[in-house]
């Protein structure tokens, strides 16, 4: 007989949908949550709140609670530089260096035909529009140093070249195949500073 009450079973099922969470981890999480009911309620509220409020910034596709994110609204940011990243995590990592004062553009992934991702599944055309519409002096292509990340950088260079904007690629002292969001701040600062023109 399955001794797990339906509510617990439902919770387990939801948790197991999360990346990196298998049945065993899910069980441990549930145990912990049920042992700390007030924490569990706070977690539930946080999840519900975020799910309701959080969306993608209309401009740069960072996570935001307004139509345009706080960064895009910040007059102190350098609007002439756009740093293109695969996902919000990578933008957070670049931001954490404290060395970058421009804006971002989140692609929402990379070109990845094996997983059915082409340019139309990414925010590529929004980026091109953005570059055309605004005064942009430089686009930094900061996709990860993986095959897909590199290919995406090549692709973006190709579609952005006609706009005449200066295109740079961050330099990879980063471990090849690694991820921007796992790089330490010193390495990331250096690869940002060492970015090179793409031609």
């Amino acid at each position: 007989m399955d001794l797990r009450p339906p509510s617990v079973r439902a919770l387990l099922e939801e948790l197991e949908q999360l990346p990196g969470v298998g049945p065993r981890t899910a069980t441990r999480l549930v145990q912990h949550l049920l042992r700390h009911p007030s924490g569990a309620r706070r977690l539930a509220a946080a999840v519900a709140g975020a799910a309701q409020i959080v969306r993608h910034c209309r401009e740069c596709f960072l996570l935001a609670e307004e139509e345009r994110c706080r960064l895009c609204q910040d007059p102190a940011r350098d609007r002439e530089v756009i740093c293109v990243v695969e996902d919000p995590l990578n933008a957070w990592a670049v931001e954490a260096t404290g060395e970058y004062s421009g804006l971002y553009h989140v692609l929402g992934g990379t070109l990845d035909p094996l997983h059915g991702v082409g340019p139309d599944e990414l925010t590529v055309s929004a980026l091109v529009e953005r570059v055309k519409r605004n005064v942009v002096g430089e686009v930094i292509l900061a996709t990860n140093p993986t095959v897909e990340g590199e290919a995406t950088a090549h692709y973006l260079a190709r579609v952005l070249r006609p706009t005449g904007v200066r295109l740079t690629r961050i330099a990879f002292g980063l471990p090849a195949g690694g991820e921007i969001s796992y790089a330490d701040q010193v390495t990331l600062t250096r690869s940002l500073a060492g970015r090179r023109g793409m031609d």
Partner: protein
Amino acid sequence: MILRRLRARGFRNLADQDLQLEAGLTLLGGPNGAGKSNFLEAVAVLGNLSSFRPISPSQLVCWGREKYTLAGVVRRAGSEVELRQDARLTRYLTRSLWRGGRRLAMGEYLQLCPVAPLSGYDRALVVGAPEERRRFLDRVVFHLHPEALRLLQQYRRALRQRSELLASGGGDGAAEAFEEILASSGARLIELRLQALRALGACLEAELAELGWPAPRPQVRYHALDGLGGPDATQLGTRIRSALARMRRVDAQQRRTSVGPHRHDLAISVGGTPAREALSAGQTKLLAVALRLAALAVLEQRLGSSPVVVFDDVDAELDASTLMRVLARLAGRAQVLISSARPEIVVPVVKGGAVWWVESGRVKTGGAERSLP
């Protein structure tokens, strides 16, 4: 380099054993199906993560079990290194690689205990499919430039992406993006291969001389039907890029990428005739041995010491005097493990060394020294 200890758990038909191995030459005898090849395979897989026979990795796990462990202690440059691989069979075989308590990436692990593998299957280097020779050459490339492993992985990944993209009707722009990576990594790969082949060619010439191969001696050339194998490496990237663009339509139909280093080969010829047509079975085996010994010599030059050598079915297809010359090439190497189903033929030829006996997957070390059951 000497593998001092070997631990096998759940590997092929080998009993779960911890063995002390010896420096110098060890001959493994035993009836067919005893596990001699499996034992040498354990050594090869421990060091190289691949066998000398063409078997799928999932076959390395003992039937009816779902994991294996191989571990060893290797002595190199005066210090001892512990290496281990834990393999688990689900739909595929997945392995975690360890040096002591530290988990390693494949490229690091493969440098801990490289094993020079020789076996009856080596004839495929001469008569087999191009893939055999590519893998052989790429192994030499890796030994000279370990960073090439990543290059190769990148290249393969980009190939799969391009094929999938073309098959699913993706646009030229995205295709071009992956072709850009194929061009740069492919050009570098060809360059490294040509470099490795030069080193290999020189060593092959020396090995053939040592083995007493009469003129004309076999020659090995880089063979690229697509014309992308030239020595003009500066233009290579550009040439690969335009060849890929040109073939895009055709490739989309055929669902493969028809040009590039993954299609290249080594052309082995004797006096102008392809070796596979010119040589007898025995000569084919000897040439394959010479190729393996040449790769071993390149690796030795690079390491400054001799890697572990395994040679399965050492006497198969070789006449007595050839066998003697082959064994003479192995003598004096730090550690050489060889097997034979007829050790009584091999024992008189080897000078010194231990003789071990294998039966039903159990290796009986020592004791039997120079006296066969």
